[in-house]
Each structure stands twice: as C-alpha cells, then as structure tokens.
C-alpha cells in the first residue's frame, strides 16, 4: 500500500506548483518582451517633430522652415507681486504690460500666455528674472531665410502655424502630409527670383513707380520660376511698416494691360486669316466708331503694314484688324484662350477678369489694344505663353515638375510661329528695342495702359507699363512678364515713362542675367566673344 502524503508534503507540493507557475509566468513574460517586442520601436520619438515641412526651391535651396521656439506661460497665482511680475515680464518679452496685468488679476485663468515664439535671448532674460510659475511650452516659428525677396509668393503662417496666404496656404496639404521631414519642392529658382526681385526694385526706384512686379515662367512645363511683387513685406517680422503690403499684384490684382494685349488680336487675325503681314492699313489721325474716336498715342504714318502695326503699336490699325473678326468672335477667342476666367494654380490668390457686359463694336476695338478689359498678370502670362509655345494650353504651377505639361491645342502651330516672328520683329524694329539682349533672340511686346481712377475716368498722365518677353524666340522656353504701376519719366528718358523706356529695359536686364543661369544657349558668334585664357 502506497504511503499517503502527509499534510506538510501536500503543502510543499502545492508551494512548488505555485513556484513553478510563477517561474513559468516570468519565463513567458521574458520571452514576450525579449522576442516578441524586442525588435519594435522603443516608443520614443527619434526625429524632430515639426508641424510643417520645409519649402525648398527647385535646386533644394531652403525657402521656409519651422524653427524651434517656445511659448511662455505663467501661473499668476504663485506670484508674490502680480503687478511687478507683469512689469518685469513685459519688459523682458515685449508683451503688453496692460494685458498681463489684466490676465494676472483674473483668477479664472490658471495659465496666462505671456508671449509666443520666444527666442533663446528672450528666454534667457526671462530666466534671469527669477520669477516662479513660468513655463516654456515648446513651439515652432516659420522662418524665411530670403525674407522680402519672395515674401509675396510664399505668404505667411498664422501664430498657430497654419498657412494664411501664398504658397504656405496653397500647398498646405502637401506641407502637412510630407513624411519624415521630406521637403516640399517648389518650382521657384531662388537665383532667378533674386535677380527678378532685385531688378524690379531697382527699376521701381529709378522711375518712382507706385508698384511693380514680374514673373518668369517655363512655357512647356508651366513652372513659375520666379514671381516678385513690390511693395513687399518682411515675412519674418510679421508686421507691416511704411508702404509694406502683403498684396501680390501679379495674382491678386487685375489690370488693363494696354498694348501688350495686341498679341491676342494678331493671333486671332492669323487664326481667322483676316489679314496678312504685308497688308497696308490706313492709320490717319483718328478712327471714328460711332460717337467715339480712337487716337494713336503718338504721331503715326498715314499707312502702316500689318507687321508694323504691332511693331509700332498702332491702336487704330489693331482696332481695324480686330473688327474684321468682330466682337462675337473676339470674345469667343479670348474665352478660348482662358483670358476671361481666373487662372487656377496652387496660389490661393486669384481674381476674376473684368470685361464689359455689352461687348459691342467700340468695346471690340478698345479690347483689341488692351483697354476695357482687365486681367491679372498671371492670367495674362499663362495665355501669352500659349501664343509662343506652339499654341498649346498651359496652366502655371508652383510645384517642380519635369514633364511637358502643355495641353490642348488652342491655336494653330503656324499661328504660334508667325507670332514668334512678329514678336522678334517688335524687338528688332519696334517699340521693344530696349529689351534686346545680344545672343538670346528676345521677342516681346510693350504695353502702356492708361490707369483708371475713380468714377471710371482715366487718371491724367498716369500709365501702367508692361513688357511681355519670350526667349529664345525661335523655340521659346521661358517668358518674362514685368509690370510697373505709374512710373514717372526721368531725365535719361526725356521725361517719358512709356513701356519702351521703363518695362522693356527691365525685361532685357532680367533676361541678360537669368539666361546664362538657365542654360539658354547664347547665339552670339564666337568671334564676337572675348575669350579668357585657360
């Protein structure tokens, strides 16, 4: 008969079972921790968390970045002397003392915001105050290394780091969705942007213009390489001083652009075969349409060939050419070219074109030379790019792309070729001579428009000048469009402030500086170049 286990033996067995179970549990837990979860992430963030991705230009140069700063909060109930604390904190941070006093006195709020985006220098000053109850909350501040040069285009963010204007707002989704700190690459070329902004600022100062702007665009991809608008503002200062404005005149405003609009009238004439370049038109001293008389801006010969109507920018000749197609056809053509609708890009700023509700004969004549219709410069540039890029629709973009984005054929390729020849003729033999750059075969058109004032009357002696340029004109890759609002004549120009004196040389200087950077071949014969010794 087997021995029956005693009480102690049973207890020992029970204890042993518990021990084995406990060890088994510990063993299982060890296996779980070491094998099952051992290769996982530690749970700690190993990268910098920023709310917004960097914005960089097409070459990877930094345009905008979140920098770590701190928001300063206070717990006023721990202050011995709240008024003194308010005074000291206001002096150290620049915060409004009155607001702090009110905030500290209000017992409902346990925390009071002292200052946002405190820099290390301010943080150091605050720490030296030795006040209790202060807390620095990590935050970020959007910083723009190039400051004013690209302020209007990039826009800014609000204190909560949400884009409120420009590409900061337009590319918000991409900026927020960027993974692992990958930057959002824009189409901007900072070198081109600087040159454009620099030249426009210099020309604006020379001629005392109220405002000025310009853009450079690739006519095949639609990429906007640069866009400048003056006056500008300091995006890092977050405050406007003097004449500063956040308004981007190239996208947000619409203008009667004047004679530069004639390129569409000629393109329409080529499309409709309503004239040929050697056809002679009567110009005379005025062209009567009903009770209105259209005059030339200056004395013109009694007759002009069609090509010289564009080269010398004859209003009367252009009006006659447009009237051959008629108002209905003209409106249809301008609609087809997209000029009557705002251009849709990544920029949130855009504006509806303005045109007469009653598109009659006189309207047809004036719209032919760019008066009576207002479009945004960006809208104009997009449609003008179609004129020179082979006749295909192009939508501007501010995101880098390598693809040829030309879309539907809006005008015949032959029309585009004829227009390119004409635009070159304007620069070699017409009003655009000052835009010529040796070796780069610039083609273009001047525009000097009267400026409408209050009550629909034009402001006496006020002009808005512009120049549209494409280069190299035999097979254009880039267009430059510059605009000056109310420039004033200077002694060097004989008191004239027309586009040929103000906008054309500006475009020429921009092209002469950016063309080598963009790799556009210089067609100057080698014999005319001065070679350096190797």
């Amino acid at each position, binding site marked *: 008969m087997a021995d029956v286990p005693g009480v102690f033996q049973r207890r020992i067995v029970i204890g042993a079972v518990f021990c084995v179970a406990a060890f088994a549990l510990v063993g299982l837990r060890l296996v779980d921790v070491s094998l099952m979860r051992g290769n996982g992430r530690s749970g700690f963030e190993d990268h910098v968390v920023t709310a917004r991705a960097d914005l960089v230009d097409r070459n990877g140069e930094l345009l905008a*970045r979140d920098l770590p700063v701190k928001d300063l909060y206070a717990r006023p109930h721990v202050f011995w002397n709240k008024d003194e604390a308010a005074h000291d904190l206001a002096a150290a941070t620049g915060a409004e003392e009155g607001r702090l006093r009110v905030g500290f006195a209000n017992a409902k709020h346990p925390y009071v915001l002292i200052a946002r985006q405190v820099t290390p220098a301010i943080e150091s000053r605050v720490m030296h105050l030795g006040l209790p109850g202060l807390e620095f909350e990590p935050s970020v501040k959007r910083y723009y*290394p190039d400051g004013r040069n690209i302020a209007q285009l990039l826009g800014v963010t609000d204190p909560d780091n949400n884009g409120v204007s420009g590409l900061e707002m337009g590319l918000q989704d991409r900026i927020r969705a960027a993974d692992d700190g990958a930057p959002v690459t824009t189409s901007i070329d900072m070198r081109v942007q600087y040159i454009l902004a620099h030249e426009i600022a210099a020309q604006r100062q020379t001629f005392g213009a109220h405002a000025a702007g310009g853009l450079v665009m690739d006519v095949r991809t639609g990429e906007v390489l640069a866009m400048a608008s003056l006056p500008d503002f300091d995006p890092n200062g977050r405050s406007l001083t003097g004449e500063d404005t956040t308004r981007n005149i190239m996208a947000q405003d619409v203008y009667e652009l004047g004679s530069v609009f004639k390129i569409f009238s000629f393109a329409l004439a080529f499309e409709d075969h309503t004239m040929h370049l050697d056809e002679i038109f009567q110009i005379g001293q005025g062209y009567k349409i009903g009770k209105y008389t259209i005059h030339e801006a200056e004395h013109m010969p009694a007759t002009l060939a069609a090509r010289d109507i564009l080269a010398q920018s004859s209003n009367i000749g252009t009006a006659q050419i447009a009237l051959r197609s008629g108002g209905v056809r003209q409106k249809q053509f301008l609609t087809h070219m997209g000029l009557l609708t705002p251009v849709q890009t990544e920029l949130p700023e855009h504006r509806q074109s303005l045109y007469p509700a009653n598109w009659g004969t006189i309207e047809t004549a004036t719209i032919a030379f760019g008066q009576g219709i207002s479009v945004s410069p960006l809208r104009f540039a997009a449609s003008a790019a179609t004129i020179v890029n082979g006749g295909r629709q192009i939508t501007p973009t501010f995101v880098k792309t390598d693809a040829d984005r030309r879309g539907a054929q809006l005008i015949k390729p032959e029309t585009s070729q004829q227009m390119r020849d004409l635009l070159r003729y304007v620069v070699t033999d017409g009003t655009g001579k000052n835009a010529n750059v040796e070796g780069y075969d610039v083609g273009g058109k001047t525009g000097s428009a009267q400026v409408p004032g209050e009550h629909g009357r034009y402001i006496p002696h006020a002009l808005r000048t512009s120049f549209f340029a494409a280069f190299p004109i035999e097979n254009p890759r880039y267009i430059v469009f510059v605009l000056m609002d109310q420039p004033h004549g200077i002694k060097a120009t004989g008191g004239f402030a027309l586009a040929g004196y103000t906008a054309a040389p500006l475009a020429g200087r921009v092209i002469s500086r950016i063309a080598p950077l963009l790799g556009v071949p*210089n067609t100057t014969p080698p014999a005319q170049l001065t070679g350096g010794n190797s």
Partner: protein
Amino acid sequence: MIRVLNFFCVALMGLSILALYHVSEHTRVTQMELTRVNRDIRETRNSIGVLQTEWAHVAGPARIQELAQSHGMTDTVSAQLSSFDLLPRRGDAPLNNSPLRNASAQVPQSSAAPSSMAPSSMAMVRPTLSPQPISDRSGF
C-alpha cells in the same frame, strides 16, 4: 530529496528576484539614457536646422551680391558658346602659340548688355501711348 528540491527552488527564486531587479534597474537606467540621447538628438537636429537656415540666409544671393559689391565687384555679363558646331574642329585648332579660349566667356558690357542701358538708344524707341489721355475713350 524534497528538502533539497525545495531549497533549490527557493534559492532559484531568490536569485531570479535579484536578476529581475537587476534587469529592471538596468532597463530603467537605459531608458533614462535613451531619453537623454533622444533629447540630445532632437536638440542637435534642431541646432542643425537653425544652422542650415542661417546658412541659407547668409549664403543667399542678396547677401552674396552685397558682399561682392562691397569688395568692388560688379555684375559681369556671361555667355555660353551655343553649340558644338561653333567650336573649331580638332584639325583646325590653333596649336601654335595662340591662347586657348574658355568655354565660358565674358561678353564686353557694351555689346552684351541690353541696349536699354544706353541712353542714346532710348531716344530711338517709339512710344506706344502718350501720357495724355486719349479723348473720347473715357467711358471705357
């Protein structure tokens, strides 16, 4: 036998407790170290970010131009040779003492700068519109 086994189990349990404590403490210390390293990495990356931003500011075209001008340098118009067709063939290359020419050349300011720079040429330009308002068009 049971006593030996019992003693062994108790001893093993004691040793396991010590080992677990050691592992737990080691984990805590390592975790603190990891936190510190992560914080250092974050601060270093932030510093790198700030330095990169500062570099982008000081190496920007505006500042470079400002520095260049302060050292007396002026804008130089540059040009490229347009195509290989314009280069001399090997057999035609001047192998005597003629100087070799760089592929990138500088164009004389007078010939390459836009004619707009010359006030004399401005007088040749015909304006498109006069500053005076055009009559009979004020209604548009």
